[in-house]
């Protein structure tokens, strides 16, 4: 079976510019989805972590339930839920991008929240008490003392989860979002050369994820590998 690299030569621009970056007539884009998800997921994850650690049951219980349900269900399910029911709930024909973004942020925040929670718990209680003794309120303690240390402790696990997140964005192709995977499927419809096309995008994903993991290792070395707490990692 001969390899036909011409199909890559004539379509790589579409695959990378439209599929990876999201620049083009179809919107979409793997990075255009992944980067905002990382940012928003991280922010929501902090909220989830704090809620789970809160003593107030009206914060603690919904947060725990949310994490329990999200972690017990495949990402594909969560995506289908949001895809079918966001339009009903909001009454507005939301562009696909926003549906995908919300679904991914809600999903990843559950996992990121757990990592951050473990990070917060790894900060010695003495720090919190000392902060309280100097007159800092809860919010300021969190912002200036606990969270920075928590994030520093959990940085390897967080970046690991970010890499998982980038891989997870490939599932957006299932609902028709024009990411790298969907772009390859689109070209394959015409050309019927699955091996070459999927191998190409596998290489692109590989460069992206391996690059991120190498960057994470470099970051690790520079920061002196602080205590690795018991964060469970996601899919």
């Amino acid at each position, binding site marked *: *079976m001969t390899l036909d690299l011409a199909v890559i030569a004539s379509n790589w621009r579409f695959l990378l510019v439209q599929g990876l970056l999201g620049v083009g007539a179809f919107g979409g884009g793997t990075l255009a989805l992944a980067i905002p998800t990382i940012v928003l997921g991280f922010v929501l994850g902090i909220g989830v972590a704090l809620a789970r650690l809160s003593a107030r049951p009206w914060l603690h219980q919904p947060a725990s339930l949310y994490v329990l*349900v999200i*972690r*017990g*269900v*495949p*990402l*594909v*399910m969560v995506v*289908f*839920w949001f895809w*079918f*029911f966001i339009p*009903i*709930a*909001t*009454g507005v024909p939301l562009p696909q991008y926003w549906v995908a973004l919300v679904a991914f942020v809600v999903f990843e925040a559950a996992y990121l929240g757990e990592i951050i929670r473990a990070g917060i718990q790894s900060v010695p209680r003495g720090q919190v008490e000392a902060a309280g003794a100097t007159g800092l309120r809860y919010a300021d303690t969190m912002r200036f003392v606990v969270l920075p240390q928590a994030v520093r402790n959990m940085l390897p*696990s967080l970046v*690991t*989860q970010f*890499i*998982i997140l980038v*891989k*997870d964005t*490939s*599932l957006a*192709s*299932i609902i028709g979002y024009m990411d790298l*995977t969907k772009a390859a*499927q689109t070209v*394959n419809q015409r050309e019927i050369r*699955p*091996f070459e096309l*999927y*191998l190409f*995008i*596998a290489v692109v*994903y*590989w460069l992206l*994820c*391996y690059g991120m*993991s190498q960057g994470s290792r470099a970051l690790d070395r520079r920061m002196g590998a602080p205590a*690795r*707490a*018991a*964060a*469970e*990692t*996601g*899919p």
Partner: protein
Amino acid sequence: MPRPFLALAYQFQWSILWTSPYGGWLLQGILTTLKLTVLGWVLAAALGAVFGAVRTVPSRFLRGVGGVYVEIFRNVPLLVWMFLWYFGVPQILPAAAQEWLNRHNGELIAAVAALGVYHGARLAEVVRAGIQSIPSTQLEAALSTGLTLTQAYRLVLVPIALRLIVPPLTNESLNLLKNSSLALTISVAETTFMTRQIESYTAKGFEALTAGTLIYLGLCLGVSAVMARIEHRVAIPGLIVRGGGAEH
């Protein structure tokens, strides 16, 4: 408050979930999910144990081989692997092999291969962390009693490591179970596929998705419960690996 919008009033009809043939479809879907999970797990465990152990041996070459396997397979999304195994690999196989696959449920084989090899790479990291967390004195002691390196691994290190890694192993097993849903993209009729099937026949999306969600929650709770019992029974007091988990 959600804006009332639908001109089409959604009429709930939960009974479709247990009327035939939809109820039967769901059961078939669950069986297929379990089949994918178990077969995938067996393959992943075998690959993970071998390559994980290989990553801790003195030989740089062997460590490198293990490293290549892990780095290649875990840095590419599982969905892409599914397509490569199902559509891509047969393209380069000889015609006779393709024929055989087509006659023998090639979809399932490809899905199991994708799941097993991908999660094998992740399990290899878990096993590696487990072995590396065993104090080196154990290995030295084993070698000093006259065991060869391979025997030391097989009889001492790996068994201990397996008992240590139950928590991250549980996590990975759950991930494998959830990832089995991706097989729907290559026409494997597992649970999520069946919920879409029911929905396309009956237009009752809410009921179908709820059924699917509850099934996965149930399966995950089941697996967690079983693994928790196992952890309890095989735990070595004072030596639980909690971190160094599956990486990505």
